């Protein structure tokens, strides 16, 4: 996908992706009950993460100065972003399967970027289940939170979720790109993606300062939900950052996407020079 593409080529790539996704949705919908059961199961699974937060707050009133509602916001916003990233971008994890099976070459034969094809072929509608519960929590929190909901605050929430989706997506692509160099890497991806999601459920104030730094400046997880939450709930900014840092989501997302694209391109180049 890091190969030069004209506008028409990009259109072809997206048209391919759209059709592959539509085909998967149609196919899954044929097994409706199984699909819905799985959605429900996913909702429960994500509910477990939320239950952990709930249990924590039966023991304490606040966590590092954050109240239950505020932590719930972190959980909802980051969980929804993660769920959307999981739905649209996690199929890239299958790169390693295709490389092992020899079917990755099939993507390279076509005049369309391999990444788009991979994301389309391995699209799984049932992953939507991961978004339901965090979305519900987010909606409730927005309703009950004691925040001055001016236009800026209202806009910040969907903006953060969208940027968070892109950031998680970038993490997925980068960690899955390792498959081009060594094949047994699926779990490394998990430690960054699922680990990242666990981290963003809580205010980074709880972390040791070294990890806080990494989560803010290296792997920009803090941009997903924490910094926007600091702005919304009037908390102190970490590292003396300006309050405007809460709005850097789009910049961070674009930078992350470019990094991901670059590393994926490097991976494909390496794959093409060493074979499978």
């Amino acid at each position, binding site marked *: 996908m890091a190969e*030069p593409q004209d506008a028409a*080529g990009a259109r072809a790539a997206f048209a*391919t992706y759209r059709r592959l996704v539509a*085909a998967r949705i149609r196919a899954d919908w044929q097994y409706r009950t199984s699909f819905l059961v799985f959605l429900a199961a996913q909702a429960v699974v994500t509910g477990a993460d939320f239950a952990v937060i709930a249990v924590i707050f039966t023991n304490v009133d606040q966590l590092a100065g954050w109240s239950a509602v505020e932590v719930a916001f972190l959980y909802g916003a980051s969980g929804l972003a993660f769920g959307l990233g999981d739905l649209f971008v996690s199929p890239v994890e299958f790169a390693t399967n295709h490389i092992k099976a020899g079917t990755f070459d*099939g993507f*390279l034969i076509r*005049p369309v970027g391999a990444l788009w094809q991979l994301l389309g072929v391995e699209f799984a509608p049932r992953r939507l289940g991961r978004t339901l519960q965090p979305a519900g929590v987010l909606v409730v929190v927005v309703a009950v939170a004691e925040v001055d909901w001016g236009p800026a605050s209202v806009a910040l929430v969907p903006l953060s979720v969208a940027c968070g989706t892109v950031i998680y997506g970038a993490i997925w692509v980068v960690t899955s790109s390792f498959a081009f160099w060594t094949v047994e890497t699926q779990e490394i991806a998990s430690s960054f993606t699922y680990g990242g999601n666990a981290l963003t459920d809580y205010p980074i104030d709880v972390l040791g300062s070294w990890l806080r730094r990494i989560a803010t400046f290296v792997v920009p997880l803090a941009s997903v939900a924490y910094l926007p939450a600091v702005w919304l709930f009037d908390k102190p900014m970490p590292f003396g950052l300006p309050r405007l840092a809460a709005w850097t989501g789009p910049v961070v997302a674009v930078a992350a996407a470019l990094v991901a694209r670059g590393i994926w391109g490097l991976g494909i180049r390496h794959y093409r020079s060493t074979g499978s």
Partner: protein
Amino acid sequence: MAALIELDRVTKTFTVLQKAGRLRRRRVAVRAVDGVTFSVEAGATVGYVGPNGAGKSTTVKMLIGILVPSAGRVRVDGRDPSRDRVAVARRIGVVFGQRTQLWWDLPLHDSFELLRHVYRVPAADHRARLASLVDLLDMGSFLATPVRQLSLGQRMRGEMVAALLHAPPILFLDEPTIGLDLVSKEAVRAFLAELNREQGTTVVLTTHDLVDVERLCDRLLVIDHGRVIEDGTVAAVKARYGAERTLVVDLVEPGPPLAIAGVEVVRVDGPRQWLRFRRGTHTASSLLAEVAARAPVRDVTVEEPAIEDVVRRIYATSR
């Protein structure tokens, strides 16, 4: 005019990790393709043959753009596949015999529709071309079946169509007839021959089935240990290496094996005798004359050397 496909001293070296003792591993450089040079004109049909591990697939992968050469120059339709993969991809069709590039869960019809968008084929052209291909390959009955439910023969026909929907001038096939029954094999060969005849599609075929080569290709390239060891028309190669021919005579009456100098009677079955001779010592007609001088002949045929024997001999001489 430049050839459609050009390889100039193309080399591909892989570094392989080998075990050297209990814990360490050594890096060994393996030359899968070693200075291969050849070119293919538009409209040709080339058979690319070699033992396993000879470098066939590696060469083809470099032509397709999946693999980047370590050294040398590759041009397909005037472009470098390693640099312009997307542009080259639009001009070639690829069929892998052992792997499918169709989408496993989709019915064939949907796969073809999807490919229309992948290759940006105008709707009208696509419709016409699809109709003619489906008709030629007799596929109407299973267009709606998901790929995973197709038989191998049906799937191969689907792969052919998928590779040709965008009317590429070049078609690469990697073991397309493997695992097919005889009828299907013949159908595939006939289809490819017609494609080449009618539309001038250049066909590059790697195969272990030398009958494919015999039926379909006018040129034969033999590769072994990463090097091209033979490059010529099928007829010329056969003539050079296929020194022995067999004259099959149907005598009017059964008789004892004919005794002719320089001729070995390989088999006798009633009135029919199989006489093996070498090109240098006899021609078919001179031998026929000698046979007729000894016994009345009712009918005669000449058997050319099987291409398997020819290629086996080529492998043997190259080692």
